[in-house]
């Protein structure tokens, strides 16, 4: 099933996809169907009691690592993001006027389903609730060689669109063989496959849970393949992963 979290009729609702519409699943309007264009799409994540851990990977595709002129890392290159950088499908992302290079990153996002600590690779899929699409924008002008990639590049307001759907893990039989694609104003600029990850999803869960507890609702953004280009105000960016969803975002100037 594909789950969404939306604002509609003055309140926030949980919904699922049903025949090309959103079927509300709780609250006073439970059972009602609304169109995709009638709602505001929020990140498809249920609220959690404490700040959600958002792990993101850098250089996790061999071709992207090469593109950025690095040799492939020997262990996952991870950084953390604040939950406040997340926004939903069809939202606006701000591009500062003075920057020269701001690019999208289409990423498979893993949503943790149950508390994970010292999980073995072979058991890792049992800990996943589902998958969604993240666009982990970066503004390279702000890159500095201190805890790189630094938060000014990677933890900006509006710069992590995520959604539209949280797709149940059971409906994604092989997350390690999904096509990824990004279009800018309808033109394909990035394409790849999750099969090309350097550290695959089970390896990442084993690695992180070897030293930290992952809680339900935590996110792992698994990195992006080759094919990043600059995005200008007015550009419509669609990051899409086969079987998971197509996440639309529009760049606006500050």
């Amino acid at each position: 099933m594909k789950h969404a979290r939306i604002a509609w009729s003055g309140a926030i609702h949980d919904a699922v996809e049903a025949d090309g519409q959103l079927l509300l699943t709780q609250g006073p309007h439970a059972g009602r169907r609304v169109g995709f264009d009638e709602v505001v799409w929020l990140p498809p994540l249920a609220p959690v009691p404490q700040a959600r851990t958002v792990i993101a990977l850098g250089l996790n595709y061999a071709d992207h690592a090469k593109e950025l002129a690095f040799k492939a890392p020997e262990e996952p290159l991870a950084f953390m993001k604040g939950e406040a950088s997340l926004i939903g499908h069809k939202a606006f992302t701000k591009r500062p006027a003075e920057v020269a290079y701001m690019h999208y990153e289409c990423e498979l996002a893993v949503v943790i389903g149950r508390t994970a600590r010292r999980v073995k690779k072979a058991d890792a899929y049992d800990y996943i609730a589902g998958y969604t699409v993240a666009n982990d924008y970066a503004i390279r002008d702000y890159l500095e060689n201190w805890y790189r990639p630094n938060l000014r590049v990677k933890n900006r307001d509006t710069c992590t669109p995520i959604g539209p759907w949280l797709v149940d893990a059971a409906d994604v039989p092989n997350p390690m063989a999904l096509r990824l694609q990004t279009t800018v104003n309808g033109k394909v600029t990035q394409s790849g496959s999750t099969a090309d990850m350097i550290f695959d999803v089970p390896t990442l869960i084993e690695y992180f849970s070897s030293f930290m507890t992952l809680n339900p609702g935590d996110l792992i953004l698994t990195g992006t393949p080759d094919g990043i280009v600059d995005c200008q105000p007015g550009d419509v960016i669609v990051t899409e992963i086969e079987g998971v969803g197509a996440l639309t975002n529009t760049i606006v100037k500050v």
Partner: protein
Amino acid sequence: MTPWTPQGTVYGTLLNFCREWDLWSERMKQDPHKAPPKAPVLYVKTANTFCPAGQDMLLQDGVSEVDIGAALGLVIGAQAQVVGAVLLNDWSVPHASYYRPPVKFRCRDGFLGLPAQVTAGQVQDWAALQLKVRCNGELVQTVQLGDLMRNMPTLLADVGEFMTLQPGDVLMVGTDCLADGTRPRAKAGDRVEISATGFASVITSVKGQP
């Protein structure tokens, strides 16, 4: 009363004390850094690091020694305004390189010692605050908040340039090093106390894996 835990995201600030900046200044121009940092260098202390008052700090997963990081954490309210502050023990696995993000050094379970409660106030109240660090009763460090590279209003403004702090978030203003560039360390069996006038102390017993 339930001891306090942060409701939002906790951010730490690297290299925000003059002493450590000065010790680093020559190396800042060298590889891999190439230049001193222009913007604040931040990191996240994830929710799994929260170690509420009264809980022990367990050294595990191959870690036998930790740096003590006495920090003042600014507690954020509405409109990104500071509504209070807390003392925190921002534990880290000692690491010499600041080039790559410090996830496995700073985001381990229990790596943020918390006090029982928040002290209300404004940043100007704490501009000259002294933090005392004691290990097994012995004073091992005195941290002067007057020695910040970016003082608290400047840090808040420079962070706010690229991200809006949310109600419940905590921004730690940095941890100082000792004269030789290291930080006081703790190992299993130690009892570490961070205190300052007007604040709930952070007192932690460090335990090893049995």
